[in-house]
């Protein structure tokens, strides 16, 4: 995989609104703390990275930084190995990037065709390309309708179309599934996979974790402006210690009591088919091949026999909860 873009200890400080500064001065209070984004990230060709985190974690801001819209205060951004500093270098970076921001409320008297043609012109492309872009996102029948007449799903498609102009190497998609119907979601996933196969790097920020799980290969978890952990699902599971569940079933007397003797394992008896079925959760490490073999050997004593062993992968929601410390139920994290 080729390294397309790299962010090294990048830092962005949110500006404090003037009204807040004035209010703090008037009340003789100390200035509020500035929100900060601190991140290091590598974007490789052909990768599909899910950017997840609770509300206010800084996902959209990080995407804007990657898109070259927000300036960074510290750190280094490298594009194709070259450090991005000047506006000209940011322009070059932007030529390799396609951005789909979260929920663009396209409005006004223009049409989807006008919008895409305009963006084609900005990118220095013939405006005739607009028709094919609209066809690609299923909007060709609405190309000449007014923007204000489009549904939310249609607007999402238009935003997606805008991000595809110029066939960019890196696609930054912020909540792309919002408002898309199931058929469009499926088509979207297929398109993303095809683009990744062609060597494009795709960063997808989403709250729909179950949707994200279906097509991302690796994740970066953000919380309070920082990337808490990143990597493939397996490595993140390992880092967070959430990949320790095993579903084991068999015949003969249940081995639950003998396994419970190990304080590092929690045993939950499940009512499944067969003589017994247990869910085993390790508290120290993941169930490696060796540990699983040792466990089977220990159970297969007397008339007890293991019929099946299955590792239960954690879902993205569980990973997110573990990484960010958000507990189950309604738990709205306060924004920084």
């Amino acid at each position, binding site marked *: 995989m080729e390294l397309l873009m790299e962010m090294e200890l990048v830092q962005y400080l949110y*500006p404090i609104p003037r009204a807040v500064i004035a209010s703090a001065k008037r009340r003789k209070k100390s200035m509020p703390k500035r929100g900060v984004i601190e991140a290091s990230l590598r974007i490789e060709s052909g990768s599909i990275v899910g950017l997840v985190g609770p509300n206010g974690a800084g996902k959209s801001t990080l995407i*804007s930084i990657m*898109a*070259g*819209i*927000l300036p960074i205060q510290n750190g280094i951004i490298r594009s194709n190995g070259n450090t991005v500093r000047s*506006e*000209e270098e940011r*322009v*070059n970076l*932007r*030529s390799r*990037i*396609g*951005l*789909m*921001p*979260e*929920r*663009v*409320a*396209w*409005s*006004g*008297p*223009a049409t989807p065709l*006008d*919008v895409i*043609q*305009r*963006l084609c*012109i*900005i*990118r*220095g492309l013939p*405006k005739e390309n607009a028709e094919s872009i609209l066809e690609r996102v299923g909007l060709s029948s609405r190309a000449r309708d007014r923007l204000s007449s489009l549904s939310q799903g249609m607007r999402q498609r238009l*935003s997606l179309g*805008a*991000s595809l102009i*110029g066939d960019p190497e890196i696609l930054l998609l912020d909540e792309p599934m919002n408002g898309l119907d199931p058929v469009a979601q499926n088509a979207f996933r297929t398109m993303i996979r095809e683009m990744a196969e062609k060597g494009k790097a795709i960063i997808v920020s989403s709250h729909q974790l179950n949707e994200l799980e279906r097509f991302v290969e690796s994740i970066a978890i953000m919380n309070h402006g920082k990337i808490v952990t990143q990597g493939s699902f397996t490595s993140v599971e390992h880092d967070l210690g959430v990949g320790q569940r095993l579903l084991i079933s068999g015949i003969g007397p249940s081995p639950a009591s003998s396994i419970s003797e190990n304080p590092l394992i929690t045993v939950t008896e499940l009512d499944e088919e067969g003589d017994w079925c247990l869910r085993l959760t390790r508290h120290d490490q993941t169930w490696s091949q060796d540990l699983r073999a040792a466990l089977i050997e220990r159970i297969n004593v007397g008339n007890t026999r293991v019929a099946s062993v299955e590792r239960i992968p954690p879902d993205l929601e569980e990973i997110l909860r573990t990484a960010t410390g958000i507990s189950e139920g309604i738990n709205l994290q306060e924004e920084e």
Partner: protein
Amino acid sequence: MRLLLHDLKVKMVTPRMVILYPLLILFIPGAVWGFSDPNASLPGSIAVDGASTVMFLSSLFILLSATLGVVLVGFDSISRPRLTGELAIELSQPMNRTMLGMNHLFGVWLSVAIPVALLQISSLAIIEHQMGTFPSIMDSFTWIGITALLLLWYASIQMIASSMAQDLGSSVTFGVATWMLFTLMWLLVTVFIATILGVDATNTADPTFIAFQEHADLFSPNGVYQLVLQNRLPEASQPTVWDGWIDLAVVCWTTIPIAVFLRRFRNLKP
């Protein structure tokens, strides 16, 4: 250039422009038709003694219509795409921000300035039809050129307002308030400042006050516009303020608001 042409093509057929066109037709060729009519009797002691006077008098109607047109066309040109998220897509494109900002500014400016210039050119024919003589090339050039510059000044101010506004309401309020200040309230501001500085403002026909007013007008785009046109009138009607100050005001009104807007646009966060 391609982008500007595309934007103009879209902007010039928007509903607000379609509403604006009849107003501009009524205010520009309509005013010229009225002022250039040899049988017309104008209120007060206004005497029309030539084409330059017609153009000067009709400038009042341009100030009332075309400048308001710029405000109405430009008030949401930055704030609306910023609020909807469209600006984020635009700023993520590989185009220098200064160029993009210039494109926004020129898009607003030219979408009003082009129809106004066309109406002014047609008004020259009306003057010829009514008075039997075409205005001089220099007078015509000054009239059309300074009107275009006036609209550029308003467009720049409106773009600054639009880039500052956090919502559409504050953007249009800022634009309309600026327009009202320079178009309707400026005399009041001048009188107020004159009184503070000890200039007798009780008699607005007093030469001392007129001289003060002309200097105060240098700080208003409408004032500068009228001073430039007044300079084309017969000598007795010309302003007393030094020409150099008028030229300097034209340069300052052209460069400073544009520079402020472009600086804001370069640092704009979507």
